[in-house]
């Protein structure tokens, strides 16, 4: 059951039944300011925004639409205005003085916010452009949480979190039996096609790494997962998949810190149950960024968080991943997922790996911390109903970038980016372009000491389904 109506995305019917929304929104705002860490930023933003328009030039959406509403500063102003009016002395005084003509938070205004804050992927590209340090991605993040407290939140996101926290335990409703089946199948595939006896170990207590990919990888990205398993196998890594929780996805990051922290605590609990020492995150970008927050929630002795790209590069560098002499011949380019690259945390490892295994690696520009978002960030990729917006407007810059590289393979190490980029390529007529995971290529390049059938090269189990939820 879903309702469109007011928003361009589906919401649950109850979103339209909430009464007294302005008061509830403000109550949520007050509580968040009291208990969270947002006040320090909002206060500075609300007082100092320069309105210099530099952010406009950096937003890939504004670059395409040219609409005032899509200027980052314009959107953030929607929330800052509420903050100024209701949470600063000057605002309260001004409202007293100007009486009825003062700005008041209304239902219409809230609906506008509901629409606007889902036109931003929170990619934070505009952040580096702001002389006063305003992070519009942060404002979007916060505004979405506040909106969620009056149930303005896309149905797809809420349904996935419900499944994860109150249902099957993961966002794609994969059962443990189903998971084991899939992994068994992948093990067979690894053995028969690639000639390697790699295993997917379950519930191994005391393993060094507990593995959390986006659970959708088990459904959609078989090659990438096989690559993960193969890397762990050849490098002799001690790892395990917990049957209690095997989903790294955290849609709380996209709409509610309340959900975010519950999902993270579940993940930590599983690592503790298995007495694991480290969290190994799959290629997924937002899962990695969420996991980086683990130290904030894990108390003493938090598990270390390692992304599988970092792990793979470390092993490759140490000579523990044998490579075939011949390199991957296709032209390959790399898409930086915002959640890995924006703060400069993971930009070089994937490049080093790709340069080692590809004969024709090219960069798209801009890249690294200045990359363009795939266009489906901030959870919007899960909203199939806004696909024309996502690929046509938000993803247009990306399509141009990919086209300019002339690449046949676009490596996108994030489950969200993968789905979005496949749709971008489809909708922009980039027919010859295939979107792959980095571990999928690594699997092709690894030398298992046996003559793997040549046909295996490029063989893919993964067919991206349009309607399947992804991480």
């Amino acid at each position: 059951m879903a309702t469109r109506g007011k928003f361009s995305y589906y919401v649950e019917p109850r979103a339209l039944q909430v009464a007294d929304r302005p008061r509830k929104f403000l109550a949520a705002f007050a509580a968040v300011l009291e208990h969270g860490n947002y006040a320090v930023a909002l206060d500075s933003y609300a007082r100092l925004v320069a309105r210099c328009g530099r952010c406009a030039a950096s937003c890939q959406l504004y670059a395409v639409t040219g609409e005032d509403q899509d200027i980052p500063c314009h959107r953030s102003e929607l929330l800052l205005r509420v903050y100024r009016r209701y949470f600063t002395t000057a605002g309260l005084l001004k409202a007293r003085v100007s009486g009825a003509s003062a700005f008041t938070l209304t239902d219409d205004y809230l609906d506008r916010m509901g629409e606007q804050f889902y036109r931003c992927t929170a990619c934070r590209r505009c952040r580096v452009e702001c002389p006063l340090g305003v992070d519009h991605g942060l404002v979007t993040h916060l505004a979405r949480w506040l909106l969620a407290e009056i149930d303005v939140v896309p149905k797809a996101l809420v349904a996935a979190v419900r499944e994860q926290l109150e249902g099957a335990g993961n966002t794609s409703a994969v059962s443990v039996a189903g998971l084991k089946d899939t992994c068994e199948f992948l093990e067979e595939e690894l053995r028969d096609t690639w000639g390697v006896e790699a295993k997917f170990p379950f519930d191994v207590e005391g393993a060094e790494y507990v593995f959390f990919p986006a659970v959708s990888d088990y459904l959609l990205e078989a090659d990438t997962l096989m690559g993960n398993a193969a890397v762990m196998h050849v490098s002799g890594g001690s790892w395990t998949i917990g049957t209690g929780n095997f989903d790294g996805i955290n849609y709380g990051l996209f709409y509610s810190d309340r959900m975010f922290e519950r999902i993270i605590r579940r993940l930590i609990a599983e690592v503790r149950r298995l007495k694991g020492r480290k969290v190994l995150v799959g290629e997924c970008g937002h899962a990695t960024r969420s996991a980086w927050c683990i130290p904030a929630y894990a108390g003493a002795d938090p598990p270390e968080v390692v992304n599988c790209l970092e792990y793979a590069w470390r092993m490759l560098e140490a000579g523990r991943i044998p490579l075939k002499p011949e390199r991957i011949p296709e032209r390959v380019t790399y898409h930086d997922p915002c959640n890995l690259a924006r703060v400069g945390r993971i930009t070089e490892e994937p490049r080093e790996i790709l340069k080692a295994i590809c004969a024709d690696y090219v960069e798209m520009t801009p890249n690294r911390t200045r990359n363009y978002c795939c266009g489906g960030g901030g959870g919007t990729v899960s909203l199939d109903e806004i696909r024309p917006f996502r690929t046509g407007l938000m993803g247009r810059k990306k399509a141009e970038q990919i086209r300019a590289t002339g690449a046949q393979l676009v490596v996108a190490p994030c489950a969200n980016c993968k789905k979005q980029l496949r749709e971008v390529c489809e909708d922009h007529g980039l027919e010859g372009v295939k979107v792959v995971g980095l571990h999928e290529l690594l699997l092709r390049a690894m030398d298992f000491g046996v003559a793997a059938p040549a046909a295996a090269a490029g063989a893919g189990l993964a067919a991206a389904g349009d309607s399947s939820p992804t991480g």
Partner: protein
Amino acid sequence: MHGWLQWLQGPVFWAALCFAVLGLARRLGLAVAQIRGALARAGDRRVGYRAVWRGTVRWLSPAAPLGARPLFGATSALFHLGVIVAPLFLAGHIALIRDAVGLAWPALPNAAATALALAAVVAAVALVIERLASRATRSLSGFQEYALPLVVALPLVTGLLVMHPAWNPAPYEPMLLLHAATADLLLVLVPVTKLSHVALFPVTQLATELAWHFAPDAGAKVGLALGREGEPI
């Protein structure tokens, strides 16, 4: 007339200066308190101070504002340079302060100060025009955005006229009076408008960084406060 001038240059000036300094100090104090509060609440206190520092000082380089909007950025850099340097290093100002409190520092040659002040005035007008000329900034801007550069330019304009009688269409004394009055006004506006970035600039990047350092139980506490904690999702 002379009495008025003495009043504006004396008690009013000192009152305005105190208002500005104390106002900024208060804001800065509040910001520091907020920062400490955020740090205390944060579950993970490893803050990327290096990146914050780099992100902050980056903007102090005159080349930094170029980039996304080069013309606007260059104008802004010129404006800032003139507004800060010209009045602070003007021989006449330094003499006034030396007479009042005995502090002095090296002055710029008057010709250089004049050139800088002129550049800043031109830049202020250009900022307003450029703001109006681009659709993005036009849609973002309100009264403050247009008024503030001009208000900042007023003491510079009057100061230039005072320094260069040949340019001055009005008599000297009233112009000096106007100069003192506009300078006092500017001082009063600094802590209560976005001009307060003169003092708060160093905390803006840190504020963003800290906001991303979630307080580990903030969500649950908000849920409790709103009576939604036990609610099914």
